Structure formats: C-alpha cells, structure tokens
C-alpha cells in the first residue's frame, strides 16, 4: 500500500530514515495490538487481552516519545521546521 507517514522533519539521513521506520512500526503496533475485530473467549488462543491493551498503551507512549525525538529538541513553531 502506498503508505504515507509524515512528520514535520522529513530529512533524508540514514538515521532519520531509521526513525521513520520506527514510527511506521509503532503506528502499525498501535493499531494491530488492540484494535480491529477482537474475538475473545475460550475458542481462541490469544495473548491475554490485558497484555495487549498494556502493550498498546506502551506503544502509544513510545510513539509520542519517538515523535518528540524525531522532531528534535525544544518545541518550536511548525513554520520554523523544515518540511
């Protein structure tokens, strides 16, 4: 799928590309771990719901932290950032 992940610091260095990949993965985890069709009960084997929800929360916080790092140090106005 032609996926777009955009932040306000799209640079082309290797490190930034790695960070972008990380953000993409976090965005996938954020969805796949506790959203979609959720079937629970005795008929399915699944990692415990509570674990998935907990992981989902960890992923969310982690994605915010990654975004912060991607954005770089002190918060500045969006218009000041290279795009």
């Amino acid at each position, binding site marked *: *799928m*032609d*996926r*777009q*992940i*955009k*932040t*306000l610091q799209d640079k082309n260095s290797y490190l930034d590309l790695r960070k972008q990949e990380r*953000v*993409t*993965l976090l*965005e*996938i*985890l*954020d*969805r*796949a*771990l*506790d*959203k*979609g*069709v*959720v*079937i*629970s*009960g*005795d*008929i*399915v*084997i*699944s*990692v415990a719901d509570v674990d*998935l929800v907990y*992981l989902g929360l960890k992923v*969310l*916080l982690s*994605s*915010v932290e990654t*975004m*912060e790092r991607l*954005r770089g140090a002190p*918060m500045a*106005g*969006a*218009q000041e*950032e290279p*795009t």
Partner: protein
Amino acid sequence: MKIYAYGIIDSKDTIDETIFGLEGASVYNISYRDIGMVVSELRQKLQEITDANVLKHEEVIEALMMKSTVLPIRFSTIFYTKEDLLSTMLFYYQDFIDNLARLRNKVEFGIKVIWPADTIKQRIVDVYHKAEHNPERIDLPIPFKEGSNVSISTESPAKTFVKEKFHEHIIEKEFQEEADRCIQVVDDYFNRIACEKKLKRLQTESLLLNASYLVDKDRQNEFKQAFEQLKNAPSDLKFLFSGPWPCYNFVTLTKKSSSVDYFMV
C-alpha cells in the same frame, strides 16, 4: 495445527494470488455463506509479539485490501479448530456483514498532534499573574480580584493553600479549554471530508490529539491536501500523519464475545 486469523473479507472465493503469512505459511480463505475469514496454519503453540510478526500480519491484510473489503482482525487471534472459527463466523455474521458494508471503499488515516504543553501552561500562568496585578484590565474569576469581598488573604497558610488549589484548578480548566479549541481547529480541516472519526484528546499531556478518520477511497487526495493546509498554517503544533490504513479503528462489533454467550447461540 492451529489457525491464525488475519481478516474478514467480503468474498467466499479462493484467494487467487499467493500470499505468505506467519511462519511462511500460505494464506487462504475459509468461507462462511457469502463472506470469508482469511487465515494461515500455524505450527507453534502461541505466537510471540515480535515486530516481524506484527509487520507480517499487517502485510497480509494490506495485500487482501487490494481486492477486497477487509475487517482487520486483531494481531494474535488463533483458533484451535476450523469448527471454532466457523462458530465465530456464525455468531458475528450480521456484525461482519454490517461492518463490511459500512467500510466498503473506505480507508483509515491517523493524525497525532503534539502541542507544547509546558509552554501552553506557562502562558496561562503568565496571563493570570498579570491579571492578578491588573484586575481591572482582565476579567478574572472573583477569587483573584483584589479587594473583592471573597478575596482570600495570603496571610493564613490554610487560605493560601485554598488559593493555590483554586489557582491550579483555574489553570487546568483553561488548559483543557485551550486543548478543546485547538482540537476543534484541527478537526475542522478534516471533518468535512471524513465519513467517521474517532478523536482521543490528551492521552498524555503532550499528545493533544490522537485522531483516526475514516475516508472514502475517492477522497484520499482531498484528505491529504487538507493535511498539507493544516501543516502549513502557522501554529505551535506538531503532526504525525499516517495512512491509508486498514480500518482498524472503525470495526464495531455489537455482540460481545464470551464463552457463555457463545454456546447460547
């Protein structure tokens, strides 16, 4: 042998193309009436949550999306037997049909908005400090107005405590209101284009908004353009825009799954 599930599709037909799922196993469709659940066989007892496995799960769903409407199933949903799987299809059939119809030709976009929470709070505090010294010029809540009948003396520790608490309350209230105003501005860019939305506000203090929008495939470019406009507007906000995704956030099942309900069907 267990059965690992990826998604529900609006087709009972065999999948034409070759798609490999977890453990490199072939992905196939198990039909139930006019729909199907796409699965692969799994040798391991329990699938670990690894980055590679989650990526594979997503990859299979995206491959299916090329030709079908897909309800993505949550990662790590594994059936013991085909009979269990078919019982699930029977139990949720109407839910699946309703969701497939609602999500046909739709995709999901994600927008996370980060704002400088500390700076925003500091601004609010500054405004109130100024206001305390110039009560006539700024409309303040009564307890902040000097000389007012209900003003609180700073001499008593108890009263100081009450005043501080009230002060914190006012700042927090203003912070929340500012958050609502900013979210409204962001949402206005997308609301007119999206079919449905899910907005989660302030999941952390910095994460002003974690939004998912359901968008008609034909309006994807319009949606992306709206984001470009938002991005280029002067503000203190930072954005993470992602998509198109399978509609993870918009699957709504009305039947609650539990082993008790299950066997009553």
